[in-house]
């Protein structure tokens, strides 16, 4: 079937950087149109348009420096913390333009959580790490409610059984994989709608990675997840849709299965077959 598509259309040339595949979705949670990102005078992202569907895991892959992390950080305006970074275009969460002047980043980031490459638990107790978000957003009015939020978040992150006896111990004392799950629990605790993950397993060993991947699979039922990864097997295992970035351009988007078995764009093919990357 796909072969036929390719034969009908002219084959895509290697130099053509327009997005191919199916970047748009029937029921999008986030809509991104013509997004450009500049660091000072240097453009890091060019004219990226993509939808992020409900309850799907979108994997973003591509060689180092291709702009996938930069794009991810646009989605919850984390790039605001970088002085000379400028974003143009439109990014919508449901019906809200997140770069609108009236939008306050603080509640926005509570709706779009983020997990980072390196586990970054606060130097506080495990309990306080998870309770931090609910406390600042006033999600719990009593200690019992807070306890409940902490327990459910840790349970969802698959960490509760391992840490329930030592909630008062510092989060920095956990192993790398546990720390990353603690960070996921911390993000879940403020009940976000979207969770952004920036190479969440790159600092972890294979066993901890497998646990996190399983967790991502379970979380998909409740949250929309965007994950940046360097590991193509990981993208294939956890995601439903995959987006391939190349030097600031979004080259190809499609179902993960299709991208990995039958890429349209020669650059995508080169990357996933390991010809460069």
């Amino acid at each position: 079937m796909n072969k036929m598509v390719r034969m009908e259309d002219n084959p895509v040339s290697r130099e053509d950087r327009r997005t191919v595949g199916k970047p748009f979705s029937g029921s999008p949670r986030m809509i991104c149109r013509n997004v450009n990102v500049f660091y000072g005078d240097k453009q890091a992202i060019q004219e990226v348009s993509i939808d992020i569907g409900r309850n799907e895991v979108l994997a973003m892959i591509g060689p180092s420096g291709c702009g996938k992390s930069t794009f991810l950080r646009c989605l919850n305006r984390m790039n605001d913390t970088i002085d000379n970074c400028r974003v143009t275009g439109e990014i919508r969460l449901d019906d809200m333009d997140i770069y609108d002047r009236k939008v306050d980043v603080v509640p926005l980031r509570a709706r779009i959580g983020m997990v980072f490459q390196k586990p970054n638990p606060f130097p506080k107790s495990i309990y306080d790490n998870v309770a931090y978000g609910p406390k600042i957003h006033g999600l719990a009015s009593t200690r019992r409610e807070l306890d409940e939020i902490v327990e459910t978040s840790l349970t969802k992150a698959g960490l509760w059984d391992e840490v329930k006896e030592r909630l008062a111990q510092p989060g920095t004392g956990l192993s790398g994989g546990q720390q990353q799950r603690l960070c996921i629990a911390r993000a879940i605790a403020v009940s976000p709608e979207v969770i952004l993950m920036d190479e969440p397993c790159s600092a972890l060993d294979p066993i901890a990675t497998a646990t996190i991947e399983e967790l991502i699979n379970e979380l998909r039922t409740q949250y929309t997840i965007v994950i940046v990864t360097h590991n193509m097997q990981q993208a294939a295992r956890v995601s439903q849709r995959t987006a391939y970035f190349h030097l600031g351009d979004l080259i190809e988007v499609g179902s993960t299965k299709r991208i990995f078995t039958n890429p349209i764009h020669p650059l995508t093919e080169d990357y996933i077959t390991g010809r460069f990357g």
Partner: protein
Amino acid sequence: MNFPLLLIVIFVFSQAAYWLGYKKAFFSAGEKGPVHLHSRPQYYGTLTVLWCVIPPLFILVAWSVFSETVLTGLALKTMSEYTGNLSPDEISLLKSDLRNIVSGRFIPPAADAALLEAADHYRHMRDIGRQGLSALALASMILGTIIVLVRIRPGMRARNHVEKMISITLITCSTIAIFTTVGIVLSVLFESILFFQQVPVTEFLFGLKWSPQMAIRADQVAASGSFGAVPVFAGTVMISTIAMLVAAPLGLMSAIYLSDYADRKFRAAVKPLLEILAGVPTVVYGFFAALTVAPVIRQFGESLGLSVSSESALAAGLVMGIMIIPFVMSISDDVINAVPQALRDGSYALGATKSETIKKVIIPAALPGIVGGMLLAVSRAIGETMIVVMAAGLSANLTANPLQAVTTVTVQIVTLLVGDQEFDSPKTLAAFALGLLLFVVTLILNIIALYIVRKYREQYE
């Protein structure tokens, strides 16, 4: 041979020694070339220089340290029939007379023939010693060079030897500071022991009256003196507390502003400006406190109907607080900047505001380091003298009222030691006891500070 000439000879010879060692190594490698050597040829040269220079320098240093004592002893032996029944004090007097005669500074009018003869003997011995010294130094230099040259072989580990000697040199350098500290402690300690033989420790530590006025001459009318250090330390604590009440919030707030709010340009301009405060001489702060701040405080206080003395703890404390702002700020800023960006990102990503992030994540993470910086600033405040001398006065009042004049430990030490003093009077020795106590207090503060700072470092590295 005189001293400078000797040094020049050693220096010139050392250059030759380098060349000799270099060439010897080079040729000992034979046809295989210098690659065959264990170390690069420069190391063989350097090793030769070290063995050429160190023995003569060692001999010269030993001579300049011990020669005077030995020579004086020998000279006094010639007049042993006189010195036999003299007291130690008289002997030390005789020794200084002898040295004066030898150096030709002046000849004591009462000098007798035996003393002059001893001085002649001293000079004679010294001349022999100096000539022997030159010969010995040069001989050791040549001997050292030859020994190394003979032993240079391709397999000789010249680099390891040189590195060993370099590390010994570095160790020596680093221990000099330690030995100096030990020396300071011991000198203060011995004088303090003399003081405590005259004034009981308990009176010094717990006495409530500080009035170190002693009759210096027997016919002088004066109080017998009381040496209770409590008012003096209370003054120090009060002024340091006022200073920290000024410096801690101002320094910490400016550090937070600079590290998390200010943009890069502003920070680059303001941080050096604030650090200029640290470069203002304390005596300048002192007259600023005495001539500007103190009158303002007095006028203000009088307009409120309070009686304010013209020299007040408040004036000194406020200005001292300004002085230590850069310490608090600089250390806090470094510590806050050392909190990883990942923690800030983690907090922002949860929807925390900047102030929530600072209050709940950054400050708790940086707290140990900030506390360490504060304690270092306290040590600095306690040791400060000039501002207090000029702005807070000299009277040792035991009071909790910051509008009155108080005095501090360092100021008392200065006033006790200024002018002509008798070094066996408790009045003078009290300065050493105060110094010792102050040293112990700041040492404890510094140890606590360093401990906290070190513990903090382990958290992120």
